[in-house]
């Protein structure tokens, strides 16, 4: 990493995102790293290191890194942080910036499309509602129109994409 290539504005851009403001309070104690269940299995994943890279302004290493997508959002880091950095929120802010910079993983687009079309991650059709009725369960909405308005996306016109979780 060359410091001359770094972007000192990156930390301000992250801090301006909801949940990103804690970044600047980090004093590198590594309590988050010690607690992280992902870091325990993936040595190159280290919340403290990601924060340092962000503070130094290594834009590419942060926004384009596949590592930022490995946080499982367990919030263990937020429980132990003496500085109230809330790394799990900071990494969400970083992911939002990464998406806007063109580094969104394909799954993010698919999620938005699916929600716009069905109001849920999983498609609900007459088939699902019939299955529910057989078990005595009330119907759920098959396509709440306001999701499309909120997300500004037209529903899928072709066959439904692969189902998620």
């Amino acid at each position: 990493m060359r410091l001359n290539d770094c972007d000192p504005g990156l930390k301000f851009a992250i801090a301006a995102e909801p949940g990103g403001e804690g970044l600047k309070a980090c004093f590198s104690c590594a309590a988050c790293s010690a607690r992280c269940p992902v870091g325990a299995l993936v040595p190159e994943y280290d919340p403290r290191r990601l924060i340092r890279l962000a503070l130094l302004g290594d834009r590419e290493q942060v926004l384009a890194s596949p590592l930022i997508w490995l946080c499982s959002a367990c919030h263990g880091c937020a429980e132990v942080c003496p500085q109230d950095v809330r790394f799990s929120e900071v990494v969400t802010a970083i992911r939002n910036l990464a998406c806007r910079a063109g580094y969104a993983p394909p799954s993010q687009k698919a999620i938005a499309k699916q929600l716009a079309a069905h109001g849920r991650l999983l498609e609900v059709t007459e088939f699902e509602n019939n299955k529910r009725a057989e078990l005595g369960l009330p119907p759920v909405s098959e396509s709440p129109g306001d999701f499309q308005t909120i997300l500004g996306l037209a529903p899928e016109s072709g066959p439904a994409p692969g189902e998620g979780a």
Partner: protein
Amino acid sequence: MEALVFLGCTVPVRNLNYEVSARKVAEALGVKLVDLPELGCCGYPLKSGDQRAALVLAARALAQAAATGLPLVPLCSACAGTLTEAAHHLDHDPAARAEVQAELGPLGLTYQPGVKVRHLARFLLEEVGLEAIAQKVVRPLSEFTFAPHYGCHFLKPSRVMGGLDDPEDPRSLARLIEVSGAKSLDYARLKDCCGGGVLGADEDLAGRMAGGKLGELTAAGVTAMAVVCPFCNVMFEGQQKAIAKRLELEIKVPVVYLTQILGLALGFKPDELGFKLNRIKPKELLEAFK
């Protein structure tokens, strides 16, 4: 007592055993779960891509709940966490509230502060109470041992989810298991994350995260693991075979929902609680209820 049930994405489509058993248990305990078919996703899946849009989706649900005047009771821990955080944020930040209202207004919705969000398990503990549940137990499950899985979003971040339990030394689910007469196992990996949050990004990593807990519980030999979140269920039940194969582990742990355990203790039959839809059958338990 009435509550507005929040089903979210996964439960009403993939986890009908959870929904059926939750409704039975609520009813038996005097909680009327009210339905609003147009409630959809809580916004959680959108957070990584666009948390402002995610917040509007959460606010949409909270506005719909406010119009009913009822507390909002999700079955999923990710929904409970997302909606609680959103309500906390919007109730304390007038600027964020105004921003969100600008999007909700044209949809005919009004955000009103003060909606109480509580996961069903938490609602049962805090509103119904252990004593009232114990009085309704007709079939104590004293010969069985369940391993509670708290997951992450049921108790964390404690900044907004606090007041129920200590995420560093949780007891709430153990108490709900014990009220059924069963034993609750305290184990080394009790607080481990299921890995569901990274399933989309790295399947192998997610599997290794869930695999540790499944390995420990296989060795411990419990009746079943007890979960309160459909995402945790995806990892521990839905992915269990794939994890065993990929990691070459000898694992087999039945997974049940807490509400299925409570339902049996309250006198319901396994068929009334959706046990047919459990993919790794808790044989020991089902044998006893033949």
